[in-house]
């Protein structure tokens, strides 16, 4: 069976034009997908059944047993952390937030180690953005700043920017200039019309220099700024100011480098200043599939996009304190539920060590680094393959994924709802 217009569940692009061929409970062919999509759909490396650590070994257990034991762990905890959420769909995330509310837990999503600082910057200065189709149809200048779309969002350039024709830009390849700013050469920098190589940690200064130029203060600019020549800075600023529609996309190269959210703030303020001359937008390259959806769901229920602490009954948010890495660093949480992410692989080692010390339960289809740190893992259907629900694209466009077949696994929502019911009954 061939299914058309399938939504890819890998990165924040949410490409929705895949054609997927299914035989029974297996995907046998994918058209239109990138390498990441092909691996996602074709790879079939799932954990077969719930497992529990028994001393220095592992044993298979039933779903009911796994869920009940998880509930007991969470009920017994003083300060549980519910982490992850980006790989699953909104309806499951919503139950997760209510579960955290019920438990007085901290709930956090993967933005915490991704675009969390972008959110902090947006909370300071706002966010002039747009949907990706605005860029596709209008942009004559596109800037990728500290992002490497060819490796991280392989179809971003062909669907929305560099290689994508639009209504007002009939031949993107000829009419659209691409600027890449990065600390190193990448596949993406090789297709740029202008590659700006910045010293590591130098983004803030380069952004400030561009802001000064846009404000008409060219005479303030020294011969080089963090490895970038004055001439190149002028050239880039002129390209931006003479654009009819410019779009900046930035990656975690800005959020993770020195300066963190202040880098993003500076980039947003550059965008704002460019809007006094022409039209400019800025957008974070959200990486992990439905991470933006987790921000949306968290926000409409709690008021905050991530790092929400219910310990005092109300929703409390203070990045740097209620963020997962900080909570784990302080050894503060005494149980952790990981859903649809892999902190074992993606958090600093000391955080992984704390996850191993406390009862950690993981709900995830695959064996990953966190598996080895957990007490229990509950495999679930893969969202976008054998589970369906809502996901938000990196620009906020919500799309419903398609279920390609009914497999043998419950989905995240099934498991979380069962967990919620048990805990609600116990807590009253």
């Amino acid at each position, binding site marked *: 069976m061939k299914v058309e*217009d399938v*939504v890819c569940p890998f990165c924040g692009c949410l490409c*929705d*034009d895949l054609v997927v061929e299914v035989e029974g409970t297996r995907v046998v062919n994918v058209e239109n997908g990138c390498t990441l999509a092909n691996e996602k759909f074709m790879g079939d490396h799932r954990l077969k059944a719930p497992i529990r650590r028994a001393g220095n070994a592992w044993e298979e257990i039933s779903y009911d047993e796994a869920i009940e034991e998880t509930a007991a762990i969470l009920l017994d905890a003083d300060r549980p952390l519910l982490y992850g959420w980006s790989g699953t769909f*909104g309806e499951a995330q*919503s139950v997760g937030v*209510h579960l955290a*509310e*019920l438990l007085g837990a901290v709930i956090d999503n993967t933005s915490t180690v991704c675009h969390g600082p972008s*959110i902090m910057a*947006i*909370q*300071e*200065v*706002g*966010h*002039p*953005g*747009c*949907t*990706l*189709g*605005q860029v*596709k*149809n*209008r942009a004559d200048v596109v800037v990728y700043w500290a992002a490497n779309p060819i490796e991280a969002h392989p179809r971003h350039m062909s*669907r*929305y920017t560099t290689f994508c024709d*639009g*209504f*007002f830009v009939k031949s993107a390849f000829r009419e659209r200039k691409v600027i890449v700013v990065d600390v190193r050469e990448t596949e993406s920098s090789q297709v740029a019309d202008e590659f700006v190589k910045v010293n590591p940690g130098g983004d803030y200064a380069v952004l400030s220099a561009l802001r000064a130029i846009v404000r008409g203060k060219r005479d303030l600019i020294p011969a080089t700024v963090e490895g970038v020549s004055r001439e190149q800075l002028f050239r880039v600023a002129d390209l931006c100011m003479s654009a*009819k*529609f410019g779009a900046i996309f930035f990656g975690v190269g800005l959020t993770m480098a020195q300066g963190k959210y202040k880098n993003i703030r500076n980039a947003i303020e550059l965008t*704002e200043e460019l*809007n006094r001359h*022409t*039209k400019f*937008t800025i957008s974070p390259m959200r990486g992990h599939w439905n991470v933006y959806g987790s*921000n*949306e769901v968290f*926000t*409409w*229920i*709690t*008021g*905050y*996009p991530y790092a929400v602490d*219910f310990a*005092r*009954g*109300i*929703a409390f*948010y203070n990045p740097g304190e209620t963020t997962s890495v900080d909570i784990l660093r302080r050894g503060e949480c005494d149980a952790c539920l990981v859903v649809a992410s892999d902190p074992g692989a993606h958090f600093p080692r000391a955080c992984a060590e704390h996850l191993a010390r406390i009862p950690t339960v993981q709900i995830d289809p695959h064996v990953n680094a966190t598996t080895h740190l957990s007490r229990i893992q509950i495999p679930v259907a893969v969202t976008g393959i054998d589970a369906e629900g*809502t996901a*938000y694209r990196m620009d*906020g*466009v*919500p*799309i*419903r994924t398609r279920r390609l077949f009914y497999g043998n696994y419950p989905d995240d929502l099934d498991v979380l709802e069962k967990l919620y019911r048990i805990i609600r009954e116990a807590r009253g």
Partner: protein
Amino acid sequence: MAGILIKNAFVIDPISGIKGEVMDIAINKGKIVEEAPPGSEIIDAAGCLTLPGGIDSHSHVCGTKVNFGRYMSPEDMRAGRTARKGVMHVTSGYSVPTTFGNSYRYSTMGYTTILEGAMAPLEARHTHEEFTATPHQDMLANTLFDGNWSIMEAVQEKDTRRAAAVVAWVLAAAKGFAIKLTNPGGTEAWGWGEDVHSVHDPVPKFGVTPAEIISTMIRANELLNLPHSVHLHCNNLGVPGNYQTTLDTIELAPDLNRERQSLYLTHVQFHSYGGSTWRDICSKSEDITRAVNNRPQVVMDMGQIMFGRTTTMTADGPMEFKLYMLHHNKWSNHDVELETGSGIIPVYYGRKSLVNCVMWSIGLELALLTRNPWQCLLSTDSPNGAPFVKYPEIIALLMSRRLRENERRMIDPRTEHFVPLFAIERELDWYEIAVMTRAAQAKALGITRIGKGYLAPGAEADVAIFSIRPDQVDPSVDYQQVMAGFSRTRYTIKRGRIVARDGEVVVEGANSTIWTKAIVPDAYDMSLDPEFRKKFEQYYTVRMSNYPVQDVYLPRGVRIETEAQL
């Protein structure tokens, strides 16, 4: 579910012609009935003011830009937070509360139906997700068409029928309720950082004018027999001297519908400014209300501002950027491909700002100078003018000249030279307030047909019982009691169930989403139109098959079907 018998209620039910009568109201199976079934719960209303459930015909509560208002404003989230309690979830937020915050606060004020003021079709799924998490009100969504490329192309070709066909397809796809035009043409121009400055200013690259878009859409709306009229946010919002644009817009409104208005103008306060700069801005409420008084085919809502902190949010992207250039606080913008835009900035309306004082006066003047309360509805364009929790204060201001005089002493003393407010003696009465907060909304939205906005047998049992005793309260003097009384109901009943009591929500709630489907002949079914399909796949970034909102997002959807005359 057993019935409810409300005894000795002081009922005002304008649609049923009840202007203040002590009577009983019987409820069974979610409806108002002649006689309550045996075993019904008895509520002794003891002469308390009892009205149909409140209806807000223009509020921003759910969807992409509302949620972004929360997302970017932890300071606002901290400013209003409550813990989980009983059936109530945690809430956060003052001007942009979380969905449960909105729902509980509206419910405890007696509101049972809300129209979300602006939904971009491409992001409709988001609005519907938040509707589901706003459990105590039935929800409707204004659907944005102001910068819709297919509409502008139809306008270029002077093809009203094609415009109607596009509306029918988009409304059904987005599960929207009505046509919303926000700064028509201006949101497309903003795609290039530009705006339109009058109803005759052409839209860049499309060549059509706002006037042409508005006129075409008013006629398309009637061709589809939609329950509501075109819902219009005029061009030039917030610009000194913009009253002329508003008058020009009113001129465009034909009288095409016997049941209701043909054009609904929203948050008109923001569109009633004289002068030419922020220095000489003045009220033009008299000109605007004169025009509206002469045209029964036009209905407006106030868009009252109230002093204090709030968040502005609108699909009107260029306006928000202009506002940002004044405030320099923080600015968000979100343009939506082929459809519309949006912007958000936080603001503070101060009693010491002459401009803000003029704005505050204008809203009240609109309500006081419009002769027929069915033509001027109470709103703050929440949260743009103020969060909806300020409604009781606005009601008190409209009912008490004394309160207005008290306020006069607190605001910028120059205000009176720029506004007629303090010369107006009119004080609205309970009946007029009942019209302006529920009955007129039901009529304007065209939802009396599904039992909204009145209390006669057969109506939906949405009832608000306030602790106010109209026989004992003189609103002109006892304005504090009016404010307190409208701030929390004794009982809010939604579809025959007590949902809130004395300021607390008592059940989990399950709402409906009301949407419109116009049945069109195949020749006007855009899903079968090859040109429409081709352009969709070429220029949108989602596939056409992934665009329509699936039924699963409306667990209790109420579809209003109409027969189009195409």
